[in-house]
């Protein structure tokens, strides 16, 4: 098991409030969200249902809705609205206006 690394994703301002953006880190796609509550969340970008792009989903109230078929995922726990579905969650934070992600390579 490898050590988590901290990745700088650049300024928070590159993501519009209430939206997500997809980053590709070492072959993994991560959807990073900039909540209207001012917080950042990061989860796996690819929907476990049929591969929908979660970064393009609608977010709010701690959830994101996949644009393809509307399955929902909790941004903090990764828990899905449908039985058996769950997404990976990456610890993320804002440091001096920059987004930092903890990433298990």
């Amino acid at each position, binding site marked *: 098991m490898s*050590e*988590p*690394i*901290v*990745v700088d*994703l650049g300024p928070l*301002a*590159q*993501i*519009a*409030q*209430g*939206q997500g*953006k*997809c*980053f*590709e*880190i*070492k072959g993994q*796609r991560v959807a990073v969200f900039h909540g*209207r509550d001012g917080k950042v969340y990061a989860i796996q*970008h690819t929907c476990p249902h*049929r*591969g*929908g*792009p979660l970064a*393009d*989903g*609608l*977010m*709010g*109230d701690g*959830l*994101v*809705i996949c*644009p*393809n078929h509307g399955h*929902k995922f909790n941004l903090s726990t990764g828990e899905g609205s449908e039985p058996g579905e769950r997404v990976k969650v990456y610890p993320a934070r804002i440091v001096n206006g920059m987004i*930092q992600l*903890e*990433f298990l*390579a």
Partner: protein
Amino acid sequence: MKKQRLVVIGNGMAGARVVEEIIERSPDKFEIIMFGAEPYGNYNRISLSNVLNQTKTVEDIFINPLDWYQKNNILLYTGARVVAIDRKDRRVLARKLTDGEAAYLHDAPTRTRAGLMEEHYDQLIIATGSRPAVPPLEGFGLAGTFVFRTIDDCRHIAGYAEKCHKAVVMGGGILGLEAARGLLTHHLEVTVLEAAPQLMPAQLDQEAAAILEQSLAAMGIRVLTNVRASRIEGREGRVSGVALSDGRVLETDLVVVSIGIRPITEIAGEAGLAVNKGIICDDQMRTSDPSIFALGECIEHRGKLYGLVEPIWEQARVLADILTSSDPNARYEGTRAGTKLKVMGVELVAIGEKDPSDPADELIVYRDPYRRVYKKLIIRNGQIHGAILLGEIEFADTLLRLYSSGGALPEKHAELLFGSVTGATMINAKDLPDQAQICNCNGVSKRVIVDAIVNKGCSSVSAVGDKTKAGKGCGSCKGLIAQLIEWKRGQVEYDPRENYYVPGVPLEKSQLVAQIMQKHLTSVSAVFQELASGKEDPDSKTGLASLLKILWPKEYQDERDARFINDRVHANIQKDGTFSVVPRVYAGVITPQELMKIAQVAQKYNVPMVKLTGGQRIDLLGVKKEDLPHMWKDLGMPSGHAYAKTMRTCKSCVGIDFCRYGLGASIKLASVIEHRFQGIETPHKMKMAVAGCPRNCSEALIKDVGVVAIEGGKWEVYIGGGAASIIRKADLLCVEESEEAVVRTIGRFMQYYREHAKYAERTYSFVARLGVEVLKNILIKDSLGINAQLDERMQTAVDAYCDPWQEADIPAYPSQFEGPQLVQVLKDVENNG
């Protein structure tokens, strides 16, 4: 036989009416003597509001002029106030009032009979009515302060208003509002003060009161609620302002006080009759003295006081029956009466209770905030228990009649508010086989739904949906689900959430619209903040965004996070996260140059598939998000909106230009329609078509809007067609004589649909739900008188339109058109966190 002497105190609505009724029954039985404190014959007090607002003159409102009394041998003392009843000697004592002395003041009890008129009675009727309540307020009595009860009050107010600019009415009840409206016709700036949090608190619920307030504001009456006057300020003996409880001072030249009425009971009380709030009467209008009767506003009957004329008419009939012995068993058992506000420009009737108070009460509410219409009906035990009709009162008479008579209601209670409608009957789900699929979107069978109803306790459509997902897709099966619940449980429980416009804001569309307009909310986040306690429900965002765009064509703040990805990037998302690009091709007519351009762009960006669509467009599929703006720029064509809930396409046949059957210029008209309505936001997508003759090659009869050329240069306009998850043939809305008329009618329908449909409700559901006859009445006959407004609001939307693909040059938000961003992890950093 010697006539009995009947003395009547008070020559108002009740006194004069009972005398009329008596004369009608036995003209010769009594010698009638009347005392009236007002210096006139008898007049219709309720019309004073019309006198003040100048729709009637004082002459118009007299019921019985002075010579009527003469003709009927009635001795009338005008301008004379009875100051005492001497029951021992059966006499009344009266005093002639001096010129200008107010009719309803209170004389101190008299000890001396000097200078008083006296009349002996055998039977006595007290009909003294009531007087306006006067506040114990410093400054009341200054020149320019008035109450509103008599002709003289009315004249004084009107005379004084001549010299004034501003008026304050204290009291937001019926009389206060009628006075306010009257003052408006005297060109005053009018402010109404109401101590309660709302207008007409006795008759209206908060919602109706809020709409009423808007209607009054629209006509120029300012309303301040939740405030009291603490003092009336004066300058040189005249009113100059009103100081309010919150510290503000309103400048004003005139004050009308209308804070309630008090029964005039003192002479009865001083004579020893039983008096509570009013003079106490039994069911035969008898007071505690068997030869003294009373009726009208001065009485209290079975614990109730009335402030309306309808009870007076009934009391007068009963009392006349008793006194003339035409029906010695006549009884008055109380009146159930409604009230009507007589304010020009506002139609309002209120009946009975304003809110349901028993869980079993049936409640029907209808609102149309655009027209400020609100209707509410409360039914208890099969009887009308209360009703409010605001803005539209054509069925008020029936309601009032049923309310006062307690008559049986029609089977369909909603007909009481709207008149009867005939709806087509549908299949009943209970007759379907067990395995039949009810919800086609989520594939839920009848068996599963019935199981949820019978074994899992689901008694509302939404509860079934939560358990089984049935009805959670397009929603068209909800009616069937309701039938199943009714079948198994006898009754469908109403879950208010079912009617919310979006799940996260607990309001129906009409309520939501009213709140949004009232609070001037122009962004989705503002709606969450104000109407959902700040909770940002992601399921509610797109519906709210759509509605706000419709309500505020210019002011809408487009927070893109509230929009579906398609509307963020103006392209249709595909299963693999790529997008499609569909340029607009007006009426499906394209030039060779445009074709070449499209071909070049498709090649340059390696578009995986180029496909012709059913809407006569060219679809470039499989495009990466980051390529979108570049492709738009290279194409140089406007967006075709193939991704949005808007008017999408208007396809056309070749029509008169080439077709040998063509009757109308279908291409030209389709192009005009498409130019005008392109990109106009609608509750769901709208597809349109124009056909050059009834052969209908462009399939206009299965479109949301279809136009078909017919003989004589005319056009048929069809609405509500569709060939999607259901197939529905469109309904004929009208036949128009010109292309301009077609375009105008389409605009009206679209605007009405925009304002009234549920979010994501296609026109085929919307038209089926309302019925085309209803829409014909509204949109063609203009039965609601709203067409000019619909036209205007549509024009505003058209004017506000701009091509979203212009965002190619200036993105609307950071990273709008970025694909996955590659992050270089140069070296593994130690985790110092």
